[in-house]
């Protein structure tokens, strides 16, 4: 998949590029609106990540312009402005999602995956996990047709780790995803351990869960 990152902060753009390339996306960087337009005219993209605060143009203007050039791409707005109004305008103009800065790169990737799933439609939302299968649409975890009863938070946690399999995930990253921006890190991240313990307890009744690894001092990782 090809991604165009329109972001004037070069360090930020490079970091996003570095991260996404590890997940096998192909990334181009554009540091201004004019550069972005040129890139879009030359190449087709699956994703366009658009920062609203560009030096040479209003990001929302660029969004409506680029929709004409690159109509098939999925757009995610990235902004530090975070105003509700911008968000509504952006989504009205046809953006697929909206991510306020600072965001976690994992969150960005999750959103991109969700958009891909939504757009492809026929993409199988059931993901295998050891002897289990996880149905992201129905929010169910199955072991040979047996439904395993996970709480809402436990399922959120498991699916998030599954979407970012083979990456080390810190407690902060997990609690930020589960509880949002107002999570109280020191305090909340302890609850992640409790949730993980519960997930292990509930699933290990049916089969081994050694794919769920604890990274001492850091966090957790699903390795498959």
């Amino acid at each position: 998949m090809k991604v165009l990152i329109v972001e004037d902060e070069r360090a930020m753009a490079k970091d996003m590029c570095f991260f996404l390339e590890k997940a096998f996306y192909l990334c181009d960087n554009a540091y201004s609106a004019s550069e972005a337009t040129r890139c879009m005219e030359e190449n087709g993209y699956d994703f366009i990540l658009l920062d609203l605060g560009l030096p040479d143009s209003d990001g929302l203007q660029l969004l409506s312009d680029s929709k004409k050039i690159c109509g098939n791409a999925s757009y995610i707005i990235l902004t530090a402005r975070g105003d509700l109004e911008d968000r509504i305008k952006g989504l009205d103009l046809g953006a697929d999602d909206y991510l306020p800065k600072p965001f976690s790169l994992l969150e960005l990737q999750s959103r991109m995956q969700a958009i891909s799933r939504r757009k492809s439609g026929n993409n199988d939302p059931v993901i295998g996990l050891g002897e289990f299968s996880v149905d992201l649409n129905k929010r169910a975890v199955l072991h040979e047709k047996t439904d395993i009863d996970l709480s809402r938070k436990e399922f959120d946690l498991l699916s998030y780790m599954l979407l970012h399999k083979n990456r080390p995930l810190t407690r902060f990253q997990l609690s930020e995803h589960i509880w949002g921006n107002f999570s109280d890190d020191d305090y909340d991240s302890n609850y992640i351990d409790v949730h993980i313990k519960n997930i292990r307890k509930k699933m290990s009744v049916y089969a081994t869960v050694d794919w769920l690894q604890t990274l001492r001092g850091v966090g957790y990782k699903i390795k498959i």
Partner: protein
Amino acid sequence: MKLLTKLTLFITLSKLLIVVLFVMLLPLLVNRASFQYTNYYLGQQRKKVLAVIQKNGIEYYLQGDTSYGSYTMLKEEYISLSPSSTVALRDTIESSQRIIEADTLNYRVLTHHLTANNKRYQLEIGKTISTIGQYNSLLQRFTLYILIGLIVISILVDLIYTHVLLRPLAKIISSKLVHRKFPFKEALFPVRTSTSDFKLLDRSLMSLMEKIQEAFDKEREFTSNASHELMTPISILKTNIENLLEDESLAEEHQEKILAMMKTLNRLKKIVHSLLYISRIENNQFAMNDTVEVFSLVEEVKDELSHRMEIQDISFINAISPKLIMSQVNHDLLFQLLYNLINNAIRYNKAKGTIHITDRYTQGKPYILQVADTGIGIRPDELGSIFNRFKKSAHSGSEGYGLGLSIVKTIASFQGFDINVTSEFGKCTTFSITVPAGMVLAR
């Protein structure tokens, strides 16, 4: 007591006092006036008699007799002319008794001495006292009616005038003080008045309010701008650190250091985020047109946090009255408000503690919602400052940054709620939210 009430009372009472004094003095005054008039009348009569004598001589009266006397039919007045031996230069007027045809009557008598035909005569003109006071009571009543009428008119005029005079003050109070809630969102208009004191008061109040609003706006703008400017570098650092952690070849000690950096950065991010959230609330970026069922809202928050309560074995009682609807609010903000309060109630609770959510609803009265816990409590000296931004407990060792409660406070004032807290240190804490009457209705 209001100024207008005080003035009204004063005006009415002072006028009543005048009436009472006048009623007490009135008989005396009327008596005095009628005696004086009688004296004057007797003097006039004397002049007439003297004029007749001057013109026709004393024989006109005496007709050869040595003395003359005449009285009206009912003996109200009499005149007598008799020889006299005393020499008096001045007339006298006195009240004395006279016997006329066997009747003893009280008269007001003018005595005059005159000389005619080389003889001395004494002229007496008298008027009965009873006729003098004849019109007194009528006069008194009449005067009293007029006085009462005048007093009533003057009270009315005074009251209407004070009312008109004080109307600008009432307007200043209602438009600038009573119906104003900080922040002052609506524009300010000067109250129209010709009274310079009120003008000064109004202007001073307006300039004070504008100054406060200006300072508040500046702080708000600064918070908002600073937060935005801080977000970008935080973003860069965050993505950078996340990429670093991806490196599988990283030594464990480096991983730990990176994790510590991430933790600090997260703290920074959270502070900036909370400030931005507060400034967004203060900038009116949340629409307030949701209706929320209070009971379900508490249940929603409970679901979100039930895991934590299970872990600490805390019992949660949602005793909110059913079917209460809160209107003109923002659902997300209310959720955040209750989330923060209940999360605190869990965090600062003891194992096997209780969280009790209660309310008090009376139609037409403010609605009160309380979040009570059986936790560690708050020290009395810290109760007053727990809603302040960045207030850190001097006693707790943990990294409390207090923004959770200042978010609660900001949401509450944005929605027009009052919030206060009571606590018994080491035992319990209760947060009470008071919602203005009319915002909560039973379905």
